[in-house]
């Protein structure tokens, strides 16, 4: 099977359809046509740029630019986790918690997969490293953002209950325990649902891509299984790290609940 190349005309047809949707949004007074077009433009530019960058990286195969790209991806993911919070941690903690937990989960899982499972040599071979890392970052990001958002939102709403427990002599860990468990559960539910629906309701993007580019379906399925399992582990690890650091940060050294460390929405 050979790869069918997409021409500019092919892409223009898809772009025209998006323009049509924007027109419809204008006609129906949805007010999202501007956002829609900007987002579409962004995805076109970003993906073409990524294609160019990857092309260069693949040909040179030098470790430093590849590592620089992974760090850039990590920074953007950390920023995205922060941007989705209604009440963020003030200062460097806002972006730091997301970035650190993404680093712990996605980076370690990607390296593990490259080293032990796929056994790529050298480990920074961009053809494997970048897509794997991208998929892990992109998918664990939302779980982490949901978990953190739930943590800060519940702490804000249930301030009285948390302080009632502190007043009666419970330590911070017990006082926020139930809220923390609830936040972690909420962060893990999307990936649990995704795994349960995989292949029955949804055809995952990576598998689709591999099949379209001519891989045997069973090989594509195996890769997809590995990715889904890794994403689940990454999301769980990352959410645990993020929620643990976040919940600790909500209390000071005298175990007082410090909601003033969160910004207002």
């Amino acid at each position: 099977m050979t790869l069918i190349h997409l021409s500019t005309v092919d892409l223009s047809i898809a772009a025209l359809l998006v323009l049509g949707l924007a027109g419809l949004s204008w006609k129906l007074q949805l007010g999202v046509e501007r956002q829609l077009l900007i987002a579409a433009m962004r995805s076109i530019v970003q993906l073409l740029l990524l294609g160019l960058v990857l092309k260069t990286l693949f040909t040179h195969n030098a470790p430093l630019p590849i590592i620089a790209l992974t760090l850039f991806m990590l920074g953007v993911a950390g920023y995205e986790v922060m941007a989705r919070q209604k009440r963020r941690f003030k200062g460097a903690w806002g972006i730091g918690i997301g970035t650190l937990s993404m680093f712990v989960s996605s980076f370690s899982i990607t390296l593990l997969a490259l080293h032990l499972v796929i056994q790529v040599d050298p480990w920074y071979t961009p053809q494997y490293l970048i897509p794997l890392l991208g998929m892990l970052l992109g998918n664990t990001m939302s779980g982490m953002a949901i978990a953190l958002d739930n943590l800060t939102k519940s702490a804000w709403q249930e301030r009285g209950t948390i302080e009632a427990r502190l007043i009666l002599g419970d330590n911070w860990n017990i006082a926020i325990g139930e809220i923390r468990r609830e936040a972690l559960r909420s962060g893990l539910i999307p990936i649990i649902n995704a795994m349960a629906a995989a292949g029955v309701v949804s055809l995952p993007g990576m598998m689709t891509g591999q099949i379209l580019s001519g891989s045997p379906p069973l090989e594509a399925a195996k890769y997809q299984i590995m990715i889904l399992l890794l994403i689940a582990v990454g999301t769980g690890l990352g959410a645990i790290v993020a929620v643990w650091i976040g919940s600790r940060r909500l209390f000071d050294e005298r175990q007082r609940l410090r909601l003033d460390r969160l910004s207002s929405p």
Partner: protein
Amino acid sequence: MSGLELKQFEGPGLLPIDLKIEPGECVSLTGVSGSGKTRLLRAIADLDPHQGDALVAGQSMLGMPAPDWRRQVGLLPAESHWWCDQVGEHFTNPASQLLGDLGLDGDCLEWQVSRISSGERQRLALARLLDRQPTVLLLDEPTANLDPENTAHVEQLILRYAKAHGAAVLWVSHDPLQRKRISQRRLQIVDSRIIAEASA
């Protein structure tokens, strides 16, 4: 001997104070709303950042972990919060004697928190606090939602507890008659300063 001592203690928005409450002594505190009574009690319970030191039985709050401090310094906030479904799950020991003294049924421990009235809530919150046997009581209007009969129950119980356990009591109250009934000393907050209340 227990007792509460504040040394150059500076609650949020208040000037530094020195105050000593002897074991078994009850001191009342009043002041217009927003004057900082609740903030002072919260700071003594170490729930808010503050300056200066507080001691119970000669032991500084800075010398012990915050949960240990809060177990000794029992704060009763104006509004109570509950985290389990059933009332009894918030108690550490069965406290039937305590509940009877507050005019509550013995089976109230099996009640659902969501179904109790505000007056019952207030008395149960007090029972929940005394159940843990603190050596200092910081009470923020403990009888605000109660009828005269239950107010009398609560006043008697607190004074009896203070006597029996040698507990120092700081009692915020808006009712001048109540302040006279319960306290040996009466204080008020005026312009961020804590001074003796002028006798009426």
